[in-house]
């Protein structure tokens, strides 16, 4: 038993002073934080410099466009104060089809004007005739102008029908030509998007949104909200409701997001939640793999340089294995405590406010420690077995690479969770022992420990049971594996070994 402590102490002390421990405790987390915050910084940076041009093919009332611009200006501004969105009515003035249709319409309009004039003149003349009492041939003149008037009116009706046809034709030419122009502007990336507002928007309620990036949900959502507002406003105005009344009614509702937590409700912040959970999971991964990696290389080195033989003559294989696992486990614990200490120091120095980051609390620190310990023990048993089975550094390097790649999988899977934290698949994945620690840390930081009480108990039991099983297997493999030099055990031999010993 004493040798167990001596071995543990030795493993702890020799690694604690090593450069790689300092590196993975201080430098690596720093690099990692930089690495994930930099892209976020660039993302927001880019978003803020560029003003976006939104084209509009407006078939309805002019005022809609001005209102749209006004609303966008009111809601979305860049940091320097300039509007984030500029609305641009799409021009079709240069289109020959439109020009032709337009000039035809104008000619028709002119004819219409002149016939209206003529008609009015005849009407006026008739009024004059009618009012003159002693006009010679009055009845004849009235009869004659009446015929003229009927004739002119028929002509005018005809021209009016033709004018309407032309108007409709012009509208349809405008519709198609404006879309074509807008498409080409979108293609040249002059426009970020364009909208097509139909003529009968007040009844129709469909506005088309054209873009290259329909995935940009944020943008579409913003435009949707603003359009909704101005269309409703226009409809109200048409119903003769006064403007002040309208603006009062349309005062937008703000949604403040709160989340139920063990310590009362907390306001919810997407970025804090997102990065917080990821940092938590990656730190857990780093902690497990720093000590796990040390453990793996310790077993392997002792096997390759045959120190193990000396150790075995002084201590039992069980003592050696346990000493290593616990010594390096305490090393990992030290690392985690250093991180928690740094976090506490930051909070103390007000570098970030614990009040704003809800998961920075003592309960969650304890859960982090719990899942670190359980996760480490499980992975440690696996590392010990693998280290004992392989016999050369080279093979070990390869397997180490494979292990690390496999081990980052849970971290990647965690992104699933961001999308749908309550889905069934997440629940199932949480109960897979190798994934449990990562998923639980993620879920605790997202949902709060209170919502997960049952899962915390269940996963603790699952982990403890699998640790016991795995350690049992590892002890056997370790005992036999470490004395076999020069050759790697194959699966058949391992199976045999587990059966017989």
């Amino acid at each position, binding site marked *: 038993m004493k040798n167990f402590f001596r071995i543990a102490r030795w493993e702890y002390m020799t690694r604690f002073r090593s450069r790689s421990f300092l590196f993975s405790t201080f430098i690596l987390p720093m690099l990692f934080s930089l690495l994930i915050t930099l892209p976020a910084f660039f993302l927001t940076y880019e978003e803020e410099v560029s003003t976006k041009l939104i084209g509009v093919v407006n078939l309805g009332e002019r005022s809609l466009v001005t209102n749209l611009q006004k609303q966008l200006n009111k809601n979305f501004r860049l940091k320097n104060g300039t509007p984030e969105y500029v609305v641009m009515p799409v021009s079709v003035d240069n289109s020959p089809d439109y020009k032709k249709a337009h000039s035809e319409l104008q000619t028709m309009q002119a004819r219409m004007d002149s016939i209206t004039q003529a008609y009015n003149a005849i009407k006026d003349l008739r009024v004059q005739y009618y009012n003159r009492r002693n006009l010679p041939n009055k009845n004849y003149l009235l009869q004659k102008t009446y015929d003229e008037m009927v004739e002119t009116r028929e002509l005018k009706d005809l021209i009016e029908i033709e004018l309407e046809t032309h108007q409709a034709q012009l509208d349809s030419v405008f519709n198609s030509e404006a879309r074509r122009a807008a498409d080409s502007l979108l293609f040249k990336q002059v426009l970020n998007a364009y909208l097509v507002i139909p003529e009968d928007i007040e009844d129709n309620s469909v506005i088309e949104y054209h873009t290259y990036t329909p995935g940009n949900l944020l943008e579409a959502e913003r435009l949707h909200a603003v359009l909704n507002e101005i269309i409703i406003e226009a409809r109200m105005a048409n119903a003769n409701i006064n403007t002040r009344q309208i603006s009062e009614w349309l005062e937008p509702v703000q949604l403040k997001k709160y989340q139920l937590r063990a310590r009362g409700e907390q306001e919810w912040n997407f970025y804090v939640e997102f990065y917080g959970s990821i940092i938590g999971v990656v730190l857990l991964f780093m902690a497990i793999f720093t000590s796990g990696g040390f453990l793996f290389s310790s077993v392997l080195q002792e096997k390759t*340089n045959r120190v193990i033989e000396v150790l075995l*003559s002084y201590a039992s294989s069980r003592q050696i294995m346990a000493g290593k696992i616990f010594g390096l486990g305490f090393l990992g614990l030290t690392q985690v405590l250093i991180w928690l200490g740094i976090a506490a120091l930051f909070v103390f120095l007000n570098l970030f406010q614990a009040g704003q980051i809800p998961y920075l609390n003592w309960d969650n620190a304890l859960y982090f420690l719990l899942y670190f310990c359980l996760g480490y023990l499980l992975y440690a048993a696996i590392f010990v077995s693998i280290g004992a089975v392989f016999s050369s550094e080279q093979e070990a390097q390869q397997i180490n690479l494979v292990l690390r790649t496999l081990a980052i999988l849970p971290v990647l899977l965690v992104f699933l969770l961001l999308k749908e934290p309550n889905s069934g698949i997440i629940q199932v994945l949480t109960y897979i022992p190798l994934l449990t620690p990562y998923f639980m840390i993620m879920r605790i930081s997202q949902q709060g420990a209170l919502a997960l009480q049952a899962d915390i108990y269940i996963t603790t039991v699952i982990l403890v049971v699998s640790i016991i099983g795995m350690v049992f297997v590892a002890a056997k493999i370790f005992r036999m594996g470490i004395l076999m030099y020069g050759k790697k055990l194959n699966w058949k031999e391992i199976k045999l070994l587990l059966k017989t010993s």
Partner: protein
Amino acid sequence: MLEVKELRKAFNENQVLDSLSFRVKPGEIFSLLGPNGAGKTTTIRILMNILRADEGEILYNGEPRSKVSQRKFGYLPEERGLYQRATVLALLTYFGTLNNMSRHRAEIEAIRFLDRMGLVEYTEKMVNELSKGMQQKIQFIASTLHAPEILILDEPFAGLDPVNQIVLREIIRQYQEEGKIIILSTHQMDEVEKLSDHICLINQGRVILDGKMEEIKKQYREDAYYIEAEDDLGFLHEMEDIEILEEKNKSCKIAIKNMNGDFKKIISKLFSRATVKKFYMVEPNLHDIFIKLIQKDNSQASK
């Protein structure tokens, strides 16, 4: 007294030890000899409690091995290995404490040994800064730091220069004088001849020769003589009662067949025919005995 009785050990189908027995008395330097794969390392591992025998037992002063404290044993494995990234003192102290020494005592003993080995100035050096020979000495210190009663040394001389071989030999002799049991396993027959008083030759997991060094030499003495002369020794072929074992131009190794016969006559005849420069009895060489016995054993086994 260390007694090994009827040890049997098999790895899967392969019978590595087959009823192996021997005894070592205190103050004896016991050499375990044998070709590669004879079962030496397995025997040593069983002695060190690293492996368990399938059958048979090991007794130390009448007590079964499992009840004897591990601290009474010291072991220098054949494959050398030390933690490369530790200081010499830290490493020795660690191995000392694993044998239940106090940290303080382990340090004192370590420095005492380092001084004796002429390595005291390397106390705080990293192991990987040391030469291979120095590392080997460090490992020897590690195996004896806790003053074991039984010291098992697997190829202790390999890789040491002649001067250090002498240092090591002296230390081993000192342990012998202290009445400790020393078990050597080596392929260097000259070292065995110089050092050992009891040898045990094993082949294919069985003892094929076990006895005191002098007795073995006596037993395998061929009554051979070496002659070196100024003249040609061709006339020896004509002589009766003589067998020529090796012949060179002016030297010869002969065996006298019939010792009861005219030993004097042969000698005088020899000396009268040639001017003899050297004439002495050839002691059997352990190396030759080793090869002869192994070959014989293997040919018997193949029959």
